[in-house]
């Protein structure tokens, strides 16, 4: 059977499963809609968190990015996992103990201020929208390549599915579909990785194959040594050595870590478990589930890089494999025969290089490059869709709760009934799906670049405000608001300046302390901390009842609210 038929089968089966779950888990109350009733088992929540977290970027792009960046790709690996240590140790248990629905809820109540709540709502919505557009685009790429429908149709199908289970089931529907999506995506990621590892190194476990010797057919020698040699021969940077400056890697890693710990769609997942103990436990499960993919990804990156160089460098263009021509039709692979010898030269020197491979297709094309069976190729497509849709749903829920709960109910229409609030939540998720779908079909050219935005913003606004809210009793609203505004604006301006206003200056010479826009969120975070602490020192202490709440959330026991 062809790849296309297999893809249709897998996508159809997985989508039916998601819809079935959505029908089974309709939400009846706001509590079910926002936090799945607060009764999710920590193991299930761990899986849901992992699926929520691992987006199209983790599934499709990350291994590809690492295969191009080599050792520098480390900042994604450590940044996107190390943040969970911060979440588990500094945020999740306390926020669960606090026992509200959303992140702006915590900020608004802890800092006894409507302005603080509204700033948090603004940050949550901005961060989530930036992120969700990328997911819709990822889904579009998969549909267009594997089902050969155009991107618009692809996005529309994706939107309908997300709409169906997010609007009906809210957090409850999303949680249980995410559990299913985790299973689909991890299976889809691991199967080809294991296949390729056996093929290239004879090792079943990719993490072991990563450091093993290649089989005879691949020329023997350690995989990483071989990759280093190939890279040097062709004029690429040595794979296991870093190219970026140490301080830049340091700051980017930190920004991704703080950002991970401050992203609202991840934080709210910890509101869905029954108690504080389970919140800690589910952070542990989540990181294990994430680590399975994140330790496999660098191995996949090294396999794919070696394979790609071996397969395409210096071969006759007329003799390229089928996958090559198929990706060429999507313009994600381009070949330009500069020296007219009819062969593909894939080298480090941009003047002589004739092949451009979009980094996003490495994972999708990897099974085809390695010549794996068609059903494995199709499985990857279903996995990529699971990754994109699960994250999109989680983000849409944040947008909907921010609008219906924080913006309407808690700020401007406190008298609406629960039924009305639920209706508003469904309407806002509906609008959010439409807007996200629009951007999925008409992607703004800068989507890939604003990802730094989402992390930088989350890091520079939420992370310090929440940490100080828990660990510093005397932190008051003046300090928190000043800190959030400073961190947010500094980070936003730095990124906007280098990415949009003056992109020609976007290089290490002009950067502040040699920190790229991806890493500036760390400076924003530190500024936020500094400003918040200074301002709080010279302004009145928070009211006594707020200080009592802070003491209360630090102790074990039942949640304060409900």
């Amino acid at each position, binding site marked *: 059977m062809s790849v296309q038929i297999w893809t249709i089968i897998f996508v159809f089966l997985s989508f039916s499963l998601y819809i079935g779950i959505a029908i089974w888990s309709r939400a009846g109350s706001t509590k079910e809609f926002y936090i799945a009733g607060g009764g999710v088992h920590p193991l299930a929540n761990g899986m849901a968190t992992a699926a929520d977290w691992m987006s199209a970027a983790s599934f499709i792009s990350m291994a590809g990015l690492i295969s191009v960046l080599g050792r520098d*790709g480390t900042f994604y690996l450590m940044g996107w996992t*190390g943040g969970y*240590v911060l979440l588990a*140790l500094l945020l999740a248990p306390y926020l669960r103990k606090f026992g509200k629905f959303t992140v702006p809820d915590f900020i608004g109540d802890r800092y006894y201020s409507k302005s603080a709540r509204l700033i948090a709502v603004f940050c949550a919505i901005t961060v989530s929208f930036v992120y969700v557009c990328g997911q819709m685009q990822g889904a579009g790429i998969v549909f267009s390549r594997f089902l050969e429908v155009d991107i618009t149709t692809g996005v529309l199908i994706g939107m309908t599915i997300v709409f169906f289970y997010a609007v009906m089931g809210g957090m409850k529907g999303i949680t249980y579909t995410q559990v299913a999506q985790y299973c689909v995506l991890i299976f889809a990621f691991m199967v080809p990785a294991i296949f390729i590892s056996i093929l290239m190194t004879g090792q079943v476990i990719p993490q072991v194959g990563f450091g093993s010797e290649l089989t005879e057919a691949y020329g023997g020698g350690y995989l*990483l040594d071989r990759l280093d040699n190939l890279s040097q021969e062709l004029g690429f940077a040595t794979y*296991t050595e870093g190219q970026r400056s140490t301080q830049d890697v340091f700051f980017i890693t930190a920004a991704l870590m703080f950002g991970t710990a401050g992203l609202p769609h991840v934080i709210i997942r910890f509101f869905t478990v029954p108690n504080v103990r389970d919140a800690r436990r589910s952070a542990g499960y989540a990181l294990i589930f994430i680590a399975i993919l994140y*330790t496999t990804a660098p191995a996949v990156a090294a396999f794919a890089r070696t394979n790609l160089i071996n397969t395409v460098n210096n071969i006759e263009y007329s003799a390229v494999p089928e996958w090559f021509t198929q990706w060429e039709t999507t313009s994600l692979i381009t070949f330009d025969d500069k020296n007219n010898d009819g062969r593909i030269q894939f080298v480090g020197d941009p003047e002589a290089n004739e092949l451009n491979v979009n980094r996003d297709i490495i994972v999708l094309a990897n099974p085809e490059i390695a010549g794996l069976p068609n059903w494995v190729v199709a499985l990857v497509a279903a996995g990529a869709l699971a990754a994109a849709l699960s994250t999109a749903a989680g983000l849409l829920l944040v947008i909907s709760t921010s609008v219906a709960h924080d913006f309407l109910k808690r700020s401007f229409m406190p008298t609406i009934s629960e039924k009305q609030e639920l209706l508003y939540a469904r309407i806002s998720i509906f609008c959010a799906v439409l807007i996200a779908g629009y951007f999925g079909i008409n992607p703004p050219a800068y989507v890939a670049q604003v990802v730094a935005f989402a992390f930088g913003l989350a890091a520079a606004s939420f992370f310090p405000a929440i940490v100080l809210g828990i660990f510093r009793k005397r932190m008051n609203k003046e300090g928190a608001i000043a800190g959030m505004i400073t961190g947010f604006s500094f980070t936003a301006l730095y990124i906007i300046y280098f990415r949009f206003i003056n992109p020609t200056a976007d290089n290490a010479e002009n950067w502040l302390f040699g920190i790229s826009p991806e890493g500036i969120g760390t400076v924003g975070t530190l500024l936020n901390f500094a400003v918040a602490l200074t301002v709080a020192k010279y302004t009145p202490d928070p009211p006594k009842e707020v200080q009592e709440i802070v003491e209360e959330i630090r102790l074990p026991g039942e949640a304060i609210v409900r």
Partner: protein
Amino acid sequence: MSDKNAQSYWESNIKLVIKLMCVWFFISFGCGILFVDALDTIRFGGFKLGFWIAQQGAILVFVALIYIYIYYMDKLDDRYKKDSLESSNEATKEAE
């Protein structure tokens, strides 16, 4: 009495978190970024040590850190509950 109990719970919690955060920083930012080149001179199997820590080892340490935290916090929670139960029992006895 209960206040003192709460304070000692919080202090033990903070101490644990600080210790774990030091390991977190040392492994990720230390071994994975700052000293990575020095560690790369050590090899095991097909890996350079620094490279391995940066792309594999650090993630495993992160998982371990969360589990160590879960283990000690569960113990700390139980002790806190036991202590606050005892102190409230004492308080009722004294009142009688």
